[in-house]
């Protein structure tokens, strides 16, 4: 039973008030952490988080919980590392055991090209103050014995980068922990409240229309992940975001078998074993746009073929559930956090397949941006206008393959 892991009280279920200083649209991890840091860091508590469904029922409920900060570019490294530092004290800060486990994240490489890129990242990480190591196959064997290191693999493992401080946390608990503290500060968490329109006064936003009536707002902060363009379109704002299905799956509970997080780009796998014992595995992104929270089965088939290749021991584990989320993909695979051309309207989106790990930092810098009306230095590079300038922060990793 897991009930006893949780506090007796999480949140009230208030009806929305007529007006708030700040209305946050979207009660996912980012919306909730934004509300929390608005209250905690900036003393702004007359805040509502409006959620169309149940709290943290979007991507926050669906992600594979991988946490790491070993991003390539300086700008990304800085924001994700800020997040990592917040994770390291988050359970205490929020007074909730969020099962944050720094068990290490291993990134396998399978070609010279992969290996070169991994080295590039390891070296860059170190200069950015992020822990990063390169492991040879022998060292991988020691660190994670169940990885298949046979040279007979179609794409044999050539090595791996390792971030020991990386790991996982329990996604739902993280959301509830932020929600509980925000609630305690007086933030209204309003569920089943869909934002259906915006009130504008000239070029300024003054409130929102919702399925539970109009709500006036000093500032409106979008935090709607896959639905960001749908909301932005209501005020005539076009965001460079595409919403794609991203699937994941779990096995039944198993005795401990996998002691760290393993990622592989080439033989597409990302997998960890959650604290209860289920293997949690992310699949590939479906190429098409979808809001259905489901994807195609061949993606799952490929995923499991890759998993069994790399972990022969998984062969007879069973998939007990697959699901999908709606990820908000930006052209450079980096988030968009900051101001919009509309006064008092802020945007936070584009975290795509990797924003869970950013949950604390995203809320931290977004709250700052909302409170001050200007970006925090950490999110300044992630402005919406970077696309016009061409100042992209390309985290896709290297593109083509050599001659």
């Amino acid at each position, binding site marked *: 039973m897991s009930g006893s892991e949780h506090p007796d009280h999480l949140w009230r279920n208030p009806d929305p008030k007529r007006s708030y200083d700040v209305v946050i649209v979207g009660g996912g991890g980012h919306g909730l952490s934004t509300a929390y840091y608005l209250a905690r860091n900036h003393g702004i508590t007359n805040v509502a988080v409006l959620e169309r469904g149940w709290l943290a029922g979007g991507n926050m409920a669906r992600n594979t919980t991988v946490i790491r900060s070993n991003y390539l570019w300086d700008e990304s490294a800085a924001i994700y590392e800020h997040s990592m530092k917040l994770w390291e004290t988050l359970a205490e800060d929020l007074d909730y055991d969020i099962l944050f486990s720094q068990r290490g994240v291993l990134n396998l490489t399978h070609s010279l090209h992969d290996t070169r890129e991994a080295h590039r990242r390891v070296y860059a990480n170190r200069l950015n103050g992020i822990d990063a190591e390169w492991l040879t196959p022998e060292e991988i064997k020691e660190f994670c014995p169940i990885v298949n290191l046979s040279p007979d693999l179609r794409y044999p493992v050539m090595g791996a980068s390792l971030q020991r401080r990386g790991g996982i946390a329990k996604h739902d608990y993280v959301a509830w922990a932020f929600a509980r503290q925000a609630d305690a500060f007086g933030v209204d968490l309003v569920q089943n409240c869909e934002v259906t329109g915006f009130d504008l006064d000239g070029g300024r936003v003054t409130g929102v229309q919702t399925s539970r009536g109009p709500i006036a707002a000093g500032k409106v902060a979008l935090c709607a992940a896959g*639905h960001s*363009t*749908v909301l932005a*379109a209501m005020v005539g704002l*076009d*965001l*460079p*975001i*595409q*919403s794609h299905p991203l699937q994941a799956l779990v096995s039944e509970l198993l005795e401990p078998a996998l002691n760290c997080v393993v990622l592989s780009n080439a033989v597409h796998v990302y997998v960890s074993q959650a604290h209860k014992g289920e293997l949690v595995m992310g699949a590939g992104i479906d*190429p*098409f*746009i*979808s*809001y*259905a929270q489901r994807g*195609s*089965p*061949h993606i799952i088939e490929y995923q499991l073929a890759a998993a069994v290749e790399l972990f022969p021991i998984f062969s007879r584990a069973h998939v007990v559930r697959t699901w999908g989320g709606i990820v908000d993909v930006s*052209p450079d695979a980096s988030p968009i956090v900051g101001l919009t051309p509309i006064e008092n309207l802020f945007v936070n989106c584009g975290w795509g397949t990797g924003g869970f790990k950013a949950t604390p930092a995203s809320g931290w810098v977004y709250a700052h941006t909302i409170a001050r009306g200007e970006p925090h230095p950490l999110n300044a590079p992630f402005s919406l206008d970077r*696309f*016009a*300038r*061409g100042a992209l922060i390309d985290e896709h990793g290297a593109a083509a393959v050599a001659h």
Partner: protein
Amino acid sequence: MLLIPCPWCGQRDEIEFRYGGAAHVEYPADPETVDDATWARYLFVRPNPKGPLAERWCHSQGCRRWFNIVRDTVTHQIMRSYRMEEAP
């Protein structure tokens, strides 16, 4: 697994196709005269509606023809399939 009606080959499994994103995106008539913002819109901003979307696919493992379909992004129902030269 979508079943996609290629206007030429008929209904085929999604795995035979390559996705091409939104259809009917206009290339700026004279890229040299548009400003950076307009050019960036062309490069990066695409329709992303919740509901029907006109989109391009290429039957890359089949007849290699690009074509358009209208597909609902919520139900995945495909309402229409038409050739490149046909009106949207």
